[in-house]
């Protein structure tokens, strides 16, 4: 049996013939959902706590914090075309439904207001024995806190705190295929600063999804640094609501699309607070017959006076059969904003190639060099340690293979 979830909806629809309004996430369910929880390894320092909670407690928290971030189609005169979420995520309501059907608990990670540290806190997530491994969490950064969370998705567990690649530590061991997915809500209270690093190094046979919804209050900042370098099929969505005045949101995203792969991305930055600032940068390279869909939205709602949104996408194409779809939206109902989007998609420039070739670098090596340097500009943002080393090793290996 195959079950199909409609995910990564565009916030407004466009021509159906383009097949870009939404993505279809197919799940092999067999006779029923054979699900388990992603194994989590983490050691939280004092000031950060984690516990499992039930949905009613989460509802209370959402009520207390007055989170009202509904997802809906915002196009004038239209009705919502899919189920609304009270706390919107990038992938949408069907991921919530999938998780609700399982008995997987939600992990509530609370960062106390007194916790202010740049020391990275590692959270390792690895699939279990089941066909489908899921993880659901809420990260609550309390007022004035500062933290860095490093989340690694790998096929086999490795001590996330180790600082080097130890002998016998093989993150590619474990299952070759399956479905691994995470649903994460992030709440950032006033003045809190949170950086979330997310690195996905699962084996190629995996389908992976990462569904995030975030709400940022006054003077807070949320940084997302993300690399997708493993699973063959990736569905990735994020919905950020910048409701607090002068809140900041920043994304640095890198991915490699290899033979037979699909990368489907939907990132929405919704501005309602005054003088908010959102910057999203995406880099990727597609090889062979890789497919990629990128949906990126800057959504300036009424009242977001003097908000600034900037989105940049750079994609290099290296395969005769690649499929690259891009739809960068700017939605605006506030006069006094500054929004821009830029995209460059295609080959290495002839000037750049010529320059490199005059220095004895072959065309193939020049391509690898460009992709590697672009991805490394993101991986270098990761805190020094095992995960960063493994990430950079993965980049090197993948580029050598392609």
């Amino acid at each position, binding site marked *: 049996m195959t079950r199909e979830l409609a995910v990564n909806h565009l916030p407004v629809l466009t021509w*159906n013939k383009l097949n870009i309004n939404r993505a279809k996430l197919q799940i092999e369910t067999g006779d029923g959902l054979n699900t388990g929880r992603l194994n989590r390894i983490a050691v939280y320092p004092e000031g950060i706590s984690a516990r499992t909670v039930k949905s009613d407690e989460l509802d209370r928290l959402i009520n207390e914090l007055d989170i009202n971030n509904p997802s809906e189609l915002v196009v004038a005169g239209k009705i919502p075309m899919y189920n609304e979420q009270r706390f919107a995520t990038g992938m949408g309501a069907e991921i919530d439904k999938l998780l609700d059907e399982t008995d997987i608990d939600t992990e509530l990670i609370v960062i106390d207001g007194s916790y202010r540290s740049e020391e990275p806190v590692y959270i390792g997530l690895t699939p279990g024995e089941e066909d489908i491994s899921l993880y659901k969490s809420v990260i609550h950064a309390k007022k004035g806190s500062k933290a860095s969370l490093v989340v690694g998705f790998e096929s086999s567990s490795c001590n996330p705190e180790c600082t080097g690649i130890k002998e016998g530590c093989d993150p590619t061991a474990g299952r070759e295929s399956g479905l691994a997915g995470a649903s994460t809500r992030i709440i950032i209270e006033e003045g809190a600063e949170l950086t979330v690093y997310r690195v996905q190094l699962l084996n190629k046979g995996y389908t992976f999804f990462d569904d995030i919804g975030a709400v940022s209050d006054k003077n807070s900042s949320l940084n997302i640094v993300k690399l997708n370098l493993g699973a063959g099929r990736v569905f990735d969505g994020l919905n950020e609501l910048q409701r607090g005045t002068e809140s900041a949101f920043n994304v640095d995203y890198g991915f490699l699309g290899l033979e037979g792969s699909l990368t489907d991305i939907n990132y929405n930055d919704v501005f309602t607070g005054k003088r908010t600032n959102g910057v999203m940068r995406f880099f990727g390279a597609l090889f062979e017959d890789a497919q990629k869909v990128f949906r990126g939205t800057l959504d300036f709602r009424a009242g977001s006076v003097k908000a600034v949104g900037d989105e940049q996408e750079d994609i290099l*194409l290296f395969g005769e059969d690649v499929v*690259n779809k891009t739809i960068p939206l700017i939605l605006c109902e506030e006069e*006094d904003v500054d929004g821009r*989007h830029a995209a460059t*998609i295609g080959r290495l420039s002839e000037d750049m190639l010529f320059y490199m070739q005059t220095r004895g670098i072959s065309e193939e090596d020049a391509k690898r060099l460009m992709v590697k340097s672009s991805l490394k500009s993101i991986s270098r943002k990761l805190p020094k340690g095992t995960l960063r080393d493994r990430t950079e090793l993965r980049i090197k290996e993948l580029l050598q293979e392609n």
Partner: protein
Amino acid sequence: MADIDFESMEREAYDFVDEESEENFYRFKEGLTEEIVLKLSEEKHDPEWMREFRLKSLKIYEELEVPDWGPSIEGLDMDNIASYVRSKSNMVDSWDDVPEDIKNTFEKLGIPQAERESLAGVGAQYDSELVYHNVREDVAKSGVVYTDMESALTGEYADMVKEHFMKLVPPTDHKFAALHGAVWSGGSFVYVPKGVHVDIPLQSYFRLNAKGAGQYEHTLIIVDEGADLHFIEGCSAPKYNVANLHAGCVELYVRKNAKLRYSTIENWSKNMYNLNTKRAICEEGGIIEWISGSFGSHESYLYPTSVLKGDNSHAEFTGVTFAGKGQNLDTGAKMIHIGKNTSSFIDTKSICKSGGVSTYRSSVYIAKSAEGSKASVNCGSLMLDSISRSDTIPAVDIRTDKADVGHEAKIGRISDEAVFYLMSRGISESEARALIVSGFANPVSKELPLEYAAEMNNLIKLEMEGG
């Protein structure tokens, strides 16, 4: 000083109503049925194939759904739209022979004057039929054919029309293309022979004067190898408190190394549903240039499409859309690259104010076969207040690694510094803002002939004052 009612003043030049009497005008009953389509076909003395085509299109129309992705068109009820309204006089080639009331309408719109001063030929459609058609003698002598579609359908070029009619925009394309196929009436046929350069533009002007009516003109232009043409299309209608519908269709064939510029200044009244379809196909080395100014309509769906079939063919779309109070204008362009080394360029400006909704929507598709192709999309939006809305929805789909695509979109407001600078030089604030908006739309107006650029700037000024 008494308040000036700019809201009503602004469209004065277009909104005058000439009452249509039963004595002078012939009108079908409202609604869309097989009986009405057959009656229309009979009225127009269609050849058998066209009669069949209309019926087939009606069937497709009934089967297709209304689009679920654009502005709401719930206010459009086909049961209240008359598909065919015409003057009881026939089409003529002298303004003196046009009935006085209709001639007055076109005089007020400045069409005969424009013909005398700057055009090589004019077609003037009033409601469902052309009332005037003329082409300059020297242009006709060079072999250029410019006639109404009905004459072309049965005359010397009947086979050419049959070969091309709704082949580029088939009725299956969307619901309103099917509607057009069923009830089309009027429009122009242009054929420019090989190597002929028409140095001054041809123009068709479409006036929908009837209340609660639809206009479905069909424009078919074939520019043969190495030929060159500039075609201008203008449209307007007076405002009524019931919905009017425009579902025209434009099909442009640009042969090898030919060039066609298609300019439109659209200023339909603000009760109009403008569901128009325009498409061009370019063969090897062909060039299509779209210049588009969209100012009118209540709701608009308009996305001129360029199919770059031949190698080294090129398309450009330059457009400005101004959505004011009560308007929801969904406009943009589509580029389809099929041939090798094809190139396309989209440059659009969207402006909205007084609660208007402006949506820029586009798609660029680069097929696997289109190696060496390049595309560039540049769209800018200007919000003039916070009760309006401006959306930008550009899609890109690339199927080859041997292509280069660049895209840039910006949204913003008129900077206070720019207004202050102009005011410090003695210009009033409203004039300063109008000047800045005209400058923003400059990429379009500079591509139009002087008279039309002046008209466009005047429309912008009126829209700005209207706030």
